[in-house]
């Protein structure tokens, strides 16, 4: 079992829908949780990060962490065609020597 599990999709939803993307993890030492967006033939770019359980909102994006279930989510409201990309969850411990562990990414298509 990999440390971080993420459904690769693809996930296709109509424009304007709410999108839910999820990851599960097995390492209870993970404390720092991130979501990256990666457009085709581009490098990943950081969308959001959270330190603890709960919700964090930034515009149309909400990141949610449930440490008791080892489950994180990213919600996208009012989805737009420009949101079509691969979304990677990533996480690490608070140990400064530890690496970021990425999920395999979920391919998202927003249909106009």
């Amino acid at each position, binding site marked *: 079992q990999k440390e*971080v599990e*993420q459904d*690769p999709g693809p996930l296709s939803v109509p424009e304007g829908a709410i999108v839910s993307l999820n990851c599960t993890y097995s390492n209870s030492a993970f*404390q*720092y949780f991130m979501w990256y967006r990666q457009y085709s*033939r*581009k*490098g*990943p*770019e*950081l969308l959001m990060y959270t*330190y603890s359980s709960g919700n964090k909102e930034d515009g149309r994006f909400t990141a949610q962490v449930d440490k008791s279930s080892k489950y994180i989510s990213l919600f996208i409201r009012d989805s737009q065609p420009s949101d079509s990309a691969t979304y*990677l969850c*990533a996480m*690490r411990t*608070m140990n*400064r*020597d530890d*690496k*970021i562990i*990425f*999920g*395999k*990414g979920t391919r998202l298509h927003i249909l106009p």
Partner: protein
Amino acid sequence: GAGVSQSPRYKVAKRGQDVALRCDPISGHVSLFWYQQALGQGPEFLTYFQNEAQLDKSGLPSDRFFAERPEGSVSTLKIQRTQQEDSAVYLCASSLLRKGVQETQYFGPGTRLLVL
């Protein structure tokens, strides 16, 4: 300002050839990371530099992989005697300093390597 740049963007190599991939980090960024991203997978850590010092190379898959950053800015990832399983996108990222967890890693566009 300019982001992280990588060259070449695409590289086709015959099996057994040596390749060199270049990364120009954001000016002033102390930390530099190399990742390997196979098709349909997330990035996997290869190695990390703080200035010119290679502090972690635990992710390099074999001794055919070698990275350097001699002057603490530009970095080169070299793969000797390439194999088909080396085909992947090689991503470089830089950040101000790997201290705590508040730094953001900025990624380059990657070099897509295909070994025939």
